[in-house]
């Protein structure tokens, strides 16, 4: 018996729980530590609060979200611009914060890189930098937005409307909150929408070779492809 052709469903797939878009603002606190050379930086890094490590690695990426190349974290930039230690700068720049889900492990990596470099180049330790490094800390305040997504269309709409700070908060800052190598968007797609592949594709977007606006566009591209498929 012939069956009537099935019409494509126009009903969107609904999430088990909605995605609430938040944003974040931060205030900079000036820390007590400052470094005039690499040895002093190393000592400060061992004792400074976690919020300082966060500021100079995670938060600085948001502050410089418009730079596509040549900026990774403040320690690398200082090693290059103020200390003229190009090799150390390269090693520090290669730290990918997405590999870290806790600040202590990130601190350990930075300290290890500088220690190893100074062992090999002991004279660099006390050479005075052109500008001192001031350790700062960041107070991040989370702000809710009116955007809520219950399906992919609403998710894409929210992504288009929120500020760049919201993209940063959900896509980059999330790792430290989730303690997982993922982000809020991927986590929601996987757990609430059962879209594991799309979640993986989002997680592979390179934050170091793109601006945050570029990241927003890349996320939207993945979502729009999925929306088209549905």
């Amino acid at each position, binding site marked *: 018996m012939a069956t009537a052709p099935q019409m494509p469903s126009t009903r969107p797939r609904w999430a088990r729980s909605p995605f609430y878009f938040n944003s974040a*603002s931060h*205030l900079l606190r000036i820390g007590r530590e400052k470094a005039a050379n690499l040895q002093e930086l190393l000592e400060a890094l061992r004792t400074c609060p976690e919020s300082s490590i966060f500021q100079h690695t995670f938060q600085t990426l948001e502050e410089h979200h*418009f*730079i596509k190349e040549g*900026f990774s974290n403040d320690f690398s930039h200082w090693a290059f611009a103020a200390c003229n230690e190009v090799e150390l700068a390269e090693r520090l720049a290669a730290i990918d914060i997405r590999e870290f889900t806790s600040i202590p492990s990130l601190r350990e990596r930075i300290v290890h890189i500088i220690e190893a470099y100074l062992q090999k180049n002991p004279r660099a330790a006390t050479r005075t930098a052109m500008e001192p490094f*001031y350790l700062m800390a960041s*107070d991040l305040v989370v702000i809710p*937005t009116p955007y809520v997504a219950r399906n992919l269309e609403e998710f894409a709409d929210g992504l288009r409307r929120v500020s760049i*700070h919201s993209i940063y908060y959900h896509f980059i800052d999330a790792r430290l909150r989730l303690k997982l190598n993922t982000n809020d968007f991927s986590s929601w797609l996987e757990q609430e929408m059962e879209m594991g592949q799309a979640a993986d594709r989002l997680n592979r977007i390179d934050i170091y070779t793109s601006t945050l606006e570029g990241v927003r566009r890349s996320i939207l591209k993945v979502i729009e492809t999925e929306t088209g498929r549905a």
Partner: protein
Amino acid sequence: MKEKDPQRKTANDEKNGRTREQKAEQTAKSAIIVEEAAVAKVASPPPPGAKERRFRQTDLPAHFIERRKHPRISTQQPPPPAPPRMDDYAPIIGQPELDEIRFLARHLRGKTVKMVNSTAVGGGVAEILNRLIPLMNELEIPTRWDVITGGNDFYEVTKGFHNALHGGDYNLTQQIRDIFMSYNEQNRQRMEFAEDLFVIHDPQPAGLVRSKSQKRGRWIWRCHIDLSNPHQGVWDFLKPLVEQYDASIFSAPAFTRQLSVPQYLFYPSIDPLSEKNKDLPEEFINKVCDDFGIDRSRPIITQISRFDRLKDPVGVIEAYKLVKKYVDCQLVLAGGGATDDPEGAVVLQEVMDAAGDDPDVIILNLPPWSALEINALQRASTVIVQKSLKEGFGLTVTEGLWKEKPVVAGAVGGIPTQIIHKLTGVLVHSVEGCAYQIRYLLTHPEFAAQMGRNGREHAKENFLITVNLKRWLLLFQILLGMARPNVTI
């Protein structure tokens, strides 16, 4: 390159999507501004004591030479425009950002703020408060601005303190301490302190903190000056007052001292809708260049700053001379302070002597009401220079970044905060370095343009008045216990 052929210009306009109607509207709009600016312009004589410049033989058209000798400068202060409203910033910062500011403000609605400084007019602090306070009130955070009063003896003391805190010599006697504290006490008795938040600007009114109550109100000391190398005696006198506040704010990490109270970093800011920074029609920029004899068909290097040795205008001329060997360009040095400041007049004469008979060094001594003209000069520039030897934060650098210009600046004061070397601008340490970087930018326009774009984003992200306002709202919430770091409000 200046468009000279009118037919080609029309074709270009049509290619760029501008209709005849849009063009007519744009021209009418700019005509109004141009007319307003032209109202009271006269060909200006050199300032008192300065000689008229003589130029060597040149191919430049006569009208350029005439305007370079006698630039047309406005003689009357125009009426101030109405202050902008929050919604006016939406096209600049985007609606989501504006929504976030409004959201932060909503929680503070009804909380009262008192700001206190030492002058209602003139100076950077008054300029900032004039823009910030209307915005806070519009957000329904009632904000009052009080100014302390004092006799000449008080202002002599506070001027001495100001210089001493910048590292100058000072003889701090008991009498001076008494004058400072007694005027602070008089003002404290005169004022009421019933608000929820008190923001005291700079050292002059710092003693008002003695009205701090354990029960009510949070006190913030906003320090706009560089305390990196203060006179120890003066700082030791002020520090116990500062440490009574709940928080302090500085403009750059390098400007701070060790304190027992939390120190926050608030960058100084510019208003993108002010006369100095708002967008200008191309016709107006052309008109200003015409008034000053500037040739827009050749590269323009500009430094805007008062005639002060710490801004190193003579060093800029030396750098220009090195550049000129390779690139045909003009240098514009525009600023004020040479008419009412005897030292400024001396420096202006030094600058004129250094420029000699080179007609491509254009020196403009502008009155304080030249914000629109300065805006136009910055927008007409190919490269903006701020080769300071010592600097506060360097808001002229911020202005250049905002206008998407490649900026070459001395690595002093707050400038390295604004310029990430080779990403948002270029930092230099010498005349030769300055010259090389200008040459490089003039001959690599794509690199210069990318740096300009980065610079504008950097300014938008960190140095606009809207960012400053957001920081205030966050700090108020944190101090009032309404927001805790890393917790959703």
